[in-house]
């Protein structure tokens, strides 16, 4: 794909000829996708709660759907931020809430849209699996490895003549400066 940014480069500045592999891991890409999905779903829940409750046979629950929409957007923003692990954790918790709420629709007396509710639960379960996978992969990709076995760098003084010699240089310079 031709990089559009080449068009605005100054004459003589380097322009991309061929792109290499990205620093984004599969976990990062999945997480980013889930973040945008979260925002999209949240907006839908906020703006069209009635359509959702009607499709699920759960009329009267519009305020709750709106609140879940706000929660989805917040989780999405967090998932797209540098604190993606927090965003993913909040998404997993939200998935649990969604499943519990949908379960109410499944056992609601007289609900003729139980098939839709079952389908929705299946979809949420699927997304939950993705959320958990992304959270685990993110932890593996970005977590600190080898905790408890850290190097101390005790030999990295930076002063070839030693710390005390460096202190003397500072003290001598100060004394000379004030004399």
């Amino acid at each position, binding site marked *: 794909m031709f990089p559009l940014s*080449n068009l605005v480069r*100054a004459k003589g500045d380097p322009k991309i000829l061929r*792109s290499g592999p990205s620093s984004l891991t599969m976990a990062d890409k999945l997480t980013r996708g889930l973040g945008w999905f979260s925002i999209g779903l949240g907006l839908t829940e906020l703006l069209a709660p009635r359509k959702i409750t009607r499709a699920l046979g759960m009329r009267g629950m519009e305020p709750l759907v709106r609140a879940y929409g706000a929660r989805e957007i917040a989780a999405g923003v967090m998932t797209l931020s540098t*604190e993606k692990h927090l965003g993913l954790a909040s998404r997993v918790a939200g998935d649990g809430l969604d499943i519990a709420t949908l379960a109410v629709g499944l056992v609601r007396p007289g609900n003729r849209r139980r098939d839709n509710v079952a389908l929705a639960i299946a979809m949420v379960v699927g997304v939950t699996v993705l959320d958990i996978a992304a959270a685990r992969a993110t932890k593996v990709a970005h977590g*600190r490895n*080898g905790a408890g076995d850290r190097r*101390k760098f005790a030999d990295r*003084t930076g002063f070839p003549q030693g710390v005390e010699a460096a202190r003397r240089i500072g003290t001598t310079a100060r004394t000379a400066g004030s004399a």
Partner: protein
Amino acid sequence: MKALVWHGKEDIRCDRVSDPEIQDSRDAIIKVTSCAICGSDLHLFHNFIPAMMPGDIMGHEAMGEVVEVGSAAKGKLKKGDRVVVPFTIFCGECDQCRRGNYSVCERSNRNKDLADKAFGHATAGLFGYTHLTGGYPGGQAEYLRVPFADATHIKVPDGIPDEKLLFLSDIFPTGWQAAAQCDIEPTDTVAIWGCGPVGQMAIRSAILLGAKQVVAIDCVPERLGMAEAGGAITINFMDESVIERLNELTGGKGPDKCIDCVGMESHVTMSLPDTIYDRGKQMLMMENDRPHVLREMIYVCRGAGVISIPGVYSGLVDKIPFGMAMNKGITFRTGQTHVKRWTDDLLRRIEEGQIDPSFVITHTVRLEDGPDMYKLFRDKQDDCIKVVLKP
């Protein structure tokens, strides 16, 4: 040539790009022999600095050999010269450069109109940084065009390895300036927040400038270990209260001089309410920076003390207790580094063996491995403190 290129948030790639060309008679082209990833590159990596554009070449710590010189730079440089490239580009002729304020050179920022709007008055051009500072291609590449090269260079002698000299480009003078602008007295306690590469240099600088006591604050064990090796007393803020410990170390008076080597992405314990507040606002783009360190410094600094800020901030910060700062008579010293102001003295100190800045290097890899190194450095994996890349 190969270069590390910014494609978006957390997306760095080693791309094949066209070679840079001489654009002005004062330019030179450098064949890069060593370059490094800086902590402030991570702010770009996270897309916290506005006005980046896909296709921007990263990197502002580079050195190498001159391979091409513009006609007007020929009196100062010639092919084969070995140079370190300061990260601040300066003309050497404007009023600010004549005053030694190279990082606010009035001529080197080629996006001056944009920068004037963002900052009030433009700052100098910087390599491998936002388009607010000129959008100049950076030094994490095989070749680098140096604008105003007749001024923007530090000639270095043969016989000293790159690793000892490379950091004259940024982190060593940055740590030095942070300490020097504290006007350290022999009785001073200097507290330094952040033990990343700039913090490590600031610790050594404060000792060489004669501080009585240097205290280093962080939560990363290996960084605290390296700080201790350099002569600092360390505080792990995950284990103890920074304010209580600093007061204890200073007989209840607080540190005379405070240095913020953290900047806009402070990592603090989630038990502190301002952390949650800042993170929330930053996520929602209602605040550019997380200024926990600034707040803590203002609170704990001794009256009439100095707060020096080499850590990068990008824009708006919130809930700064400025009344506290004003009433305590605190002096703030900030700014991008006036690299050239310090480098003659620092090169002399390296040559004399007073200091060897290569102590901070933990990883040396090929340029092609750069994208992975960004992640490794950001995530502090494998005890990573400083990465040097070899094109």
